[in-house]
């Protein structure tokens, strides 16, 4: 019997790439692409106009940070950049659902979550400019360092959540961890092991999967035959699919899952159904593997535009408000551009720092020898 192992498998229940999840999927949506408010019995959400405006501000600024970083990469100031274009609502909605005491574990694309945690966006550039592997103290904003190996951080978050349990901080006034990963990561052993650990230990952790439909060039169909949120049931905890381009829904769903985790009800898998509108990174060329029509379809579901439409539709904001937010975003863009251009290269001896808690004799000797080697060139130049 011939078995076709190479072709794409379109299984019952899998999402389709026109942006419409399978009709059986219970996608949580509280704001339509047209900017109309929708209600969901399980996810009531009362936001004041100011709160909606604040979310809009986040979305616009986060997109501006991304745009500026792409420009900096194109101009040779960053080695690479992983764009979040299209995923702003998933990141801002979930990021704003966290309390200061919750701990977030990002991938390398969570610039929007970083913004919500209060991290200066210029810190993000260090990694992409190549001046450090991680530019901030995770404890400052309870935002862990970017993790590049796909899915590895899901175990760190789960272990961290097990620490919260051991600290006795599950229950009333509890804490929780949230970990971000993508659709491709769901194929990693580490992610599946994290699901098992979180499940059997009932750890206070929320798994936030941004299903942006593409793992570089590989479509969702290469990772899963079923919608990703349904994976959770096999591990014994709830899985929810949310419109990842709907900042209201992402906020409401994440709030509820985090609260459940803090109270001791264990993990939740949230699949934020979204779309990577840009390239995987600045080195990628998505025209080689996907159709322009797909992007066009998703542009109609833009996460920023729908909040703007809502604000306009409800008469909550006028032109002056939108101009003010744009001006603020421009300021943030200027700020990170200037910081990037002024960012010094690290001194060569610094590479010997922080390998161990104390430098070993070997590292001391390598540092001294390399410094002497560098000095030898200085002497030659002086002699000339």
């Amino acid at each position: 019997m011939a078995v076709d192992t190479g072709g794409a498998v379109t299984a019952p229940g899998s999402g389709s790439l026109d942006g419409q999840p399978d009709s059986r999927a219970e996608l949580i949506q509280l704001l339509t692409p047209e900017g109309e408010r929708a209600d969901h019995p399980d996810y009531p959400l009362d936001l004041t106009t100011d709160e909606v405006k604040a979310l809009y501000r986040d979305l616009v600024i986060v997109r501006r940070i991304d745009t500026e970083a792409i420009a900096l990469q194109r101009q040779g100031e960053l080695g690479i950049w992983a764009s979040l274009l299209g995923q702003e609502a998933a990141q801002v909605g979930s990021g704003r659902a966290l309390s200061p005491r919750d701990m977030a574990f990002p991938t390398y694309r969570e610039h929007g979550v970083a913004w919500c945690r209060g991290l200066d966006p210029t810190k993000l550039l260090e990694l992409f400019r190549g001046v450090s592997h991680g530019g901030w103290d995770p404890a400052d904003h309870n935002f862990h360092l970017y993790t590049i190996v796909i899915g590895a951080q899901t175990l760190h978050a789960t272990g961290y959540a097990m620490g919260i349990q051991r600290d006795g901080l599950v229950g009333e006034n509890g804490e929780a961890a949230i970990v971000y990963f993508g659709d491709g990561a769901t194929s990693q052993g580490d992610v599946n092991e994290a699901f098992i650990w979180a499940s059997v230990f009932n750890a206070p952790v929320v798994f936030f999967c941004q299903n942006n439909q593409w793992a570089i060039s590989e479509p969702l169909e290469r990772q899963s035959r079923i919608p990703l949120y349904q994976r959770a049931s096999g591990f014994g905890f709830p899985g929810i699919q949310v419109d990842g381009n709907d900042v209201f829904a992402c906020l409401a769903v994440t709030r509820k899952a985090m609260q459940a985790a803090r109270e001791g009800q264990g993990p939740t898998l949230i699949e934020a159904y979204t779309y990577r509108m840009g390239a995987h990174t600045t080195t990628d060329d998505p025209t080689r593997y996907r159709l322009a029509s797909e992007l066009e379809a998703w542009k109609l579901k833009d996460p920023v535009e729908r909040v703007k439409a809502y604000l306009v539709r409800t008469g909550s904001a006028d032109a002056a408000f939108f101009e003010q937010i744009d001006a603020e975003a421009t300021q943030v863009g200027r700020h990170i551009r200037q910081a990037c251009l002024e960012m010094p290269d690290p001194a060569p001896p610094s590479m010997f720092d922080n390998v161990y808690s104390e430098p070993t004799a070997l590292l001391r000797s390598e540092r001294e020898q390399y410094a002497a080697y560098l000095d030898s060139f200085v002497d030659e130049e002086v002699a000339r």
Partner: protein
Amino acid sequence: MTTLTLSKALNEGLRKALEDDPKVVVMGEDVGKLGGVFRVTDGLQKDFGESRVVDTPLAESGIVGTAIGLALRGYRPVCEIQFDGFVFPAFDQIVSQLAKMRMRSQGRATVPVTIRIPYGGGIGAVEHHSESPEALFAHTAGLRVVACSGPADAYTMIQQSIHCEDPVIFFEPKRRYWDKADVDTTGGLADALPLDAARTVAEGSDVTVLAYGPMVRTCMEAAVAAREDGRALDVIDLRSLSPLDLATIVASVRKTGRCVVVHEAPVTGGLGAEIAARVTEQCFYQLEAPVLRVGGFSTPYPPSRLEEHYLPDLDRVLDAVDRTFAY
């Protein structure tokens, strides 16, 4: 002083660490009720509870990955990898995450995780139960790699590893688990030899013999046999494989002019290669012969009916000693 097996000495060391620091968490497969397949954690769960001595799901990457998370939350996890050959599913978490977290965070995040690995052959086991993967970890900057050889060191070194702010890969010579020796369980760690220091275990002026883990006893026996031939071996138990205590090694080789490195791991790309290069650089004018290596062949670990041919023994150590005198 009490007489303990190496396994029991580790058990007592772990018990002391659990008593001394409420942040210490022991975790691994079968470490709870069963007490570990080698009984190293025997009785600990009963005395310290299930949240401090954790029977984990059966996945090594999960063990190390969640240990990293616990460490980021302020805990000091001690992971047991049940057998040497089972560490590889955790390789990414150890090499790409655990080892690099300090540098990635510019010293802001520390992950004081200890990973215990029963290692080495000689117990007639099936495949993947007799390996010596220490060079893979010694090659990785950011990890400390140590091996204990006897009960007294086992007791102190496991505690020092847990206290250490750096991640430590702690190799336990599984065929020596039932070796007995006197252990002082009353003394503190302040008087103990530092974790990164080698120890001279037999004094001699003719040949330096460097060993660690299970090969220390083998080399001690070789030293006794060599003495009958009129040769005095300077046997050094390296204890720390990364960083290496090069000062002790170099001082010995400068005295003897000859050096033999012994380990169970394959010699190709093994720790002996690194030591030979360092010794050659630093003792070139004192060397009377090339640094020789005695170790496993460049093959996968063979079926156990052949392991006595694969593993270095007293005669192969003495053969190498003889060969250093042939130059």
